[in-house]
């Protein structure tokens, strides 16, 4: 159920999680700039996006958003490792 998707099991350490950072309209829609999410073996960026889209406001996220793993652009197929920082980036608008 959606309410459980962020639950960390009693055996899950902080090191087995990924920090998901949200910005701009994504943070506004999901009402948070950060989620700490337990990782399952083999989880990819796309898996995390699917889980976030289940949250209230999560439909603002496209299935394939711009994203960055540990501050470097990456694709949705990128595998995540415990301790990673995953940033979901709204369309860029600098300059």
């Amino acid at each position, binding site marked *: 159920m959606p309410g459980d998707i962020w639950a960390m099991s009693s055996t899950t350490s902080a090191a087995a999680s990924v920090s998901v950072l949200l910005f701009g*309209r994504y943070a506004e829609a999901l009402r948070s700039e950060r989620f700490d999410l337990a990782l399952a073996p083999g989880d990819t960026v796309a898996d995390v996006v699917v889980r976030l889209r289940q949250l209230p406001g999560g439909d603002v996220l496209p299935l394939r958003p711009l994203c960055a793993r540990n501050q470097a652009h990456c694709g949705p197929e990128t595998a995540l490792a415990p301790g990673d920082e995953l940033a979901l980036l709204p369309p*860029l608008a600098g300059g």
Partner: protein
Amino acid sequence: MNVAHLVTTPVDATRLVARVSAPERGGIATFIGLVRNHHAGRAVLRLEYSAYGPMAEAEMARIVEEAERKWTARVAVEHRLGALDVGEVAVAVAAAAPHRDEAFAACRYVIEELKRRVPVWKKEHYADGSVGWVDPTAPGGSVPAAGGTGA
């Protein structure tokens, strides 16, 4: 030394030019991006810039390194964050090279890659009281944001 920064104080292009000047560099090209008073036919009163700070500075530094390597140039770039009024400088690039061709090319490369790769966002406050996130992929170039007082 690499000069690629996000700043919360006014951008001073003259300072960037001074940082890249050297006797062996005979040409300096600059780009200065200002807050415009309109976007997609709507009157804009002010902007708010935000960023994924650590990545934005790292990506800007990578872009500068690429330009410096490709054109034997020296480049400095600053991007402003926070609330800016119409006419204020949002971004400035200074590129110095032995000759003008390399200076122009390096300057153009840096601003184009910055817009394509650096995680910075802007929220526009319109004259009608509404607020929008600038989104180059959206019809009309923006999507509604929280915090508006109008349509």
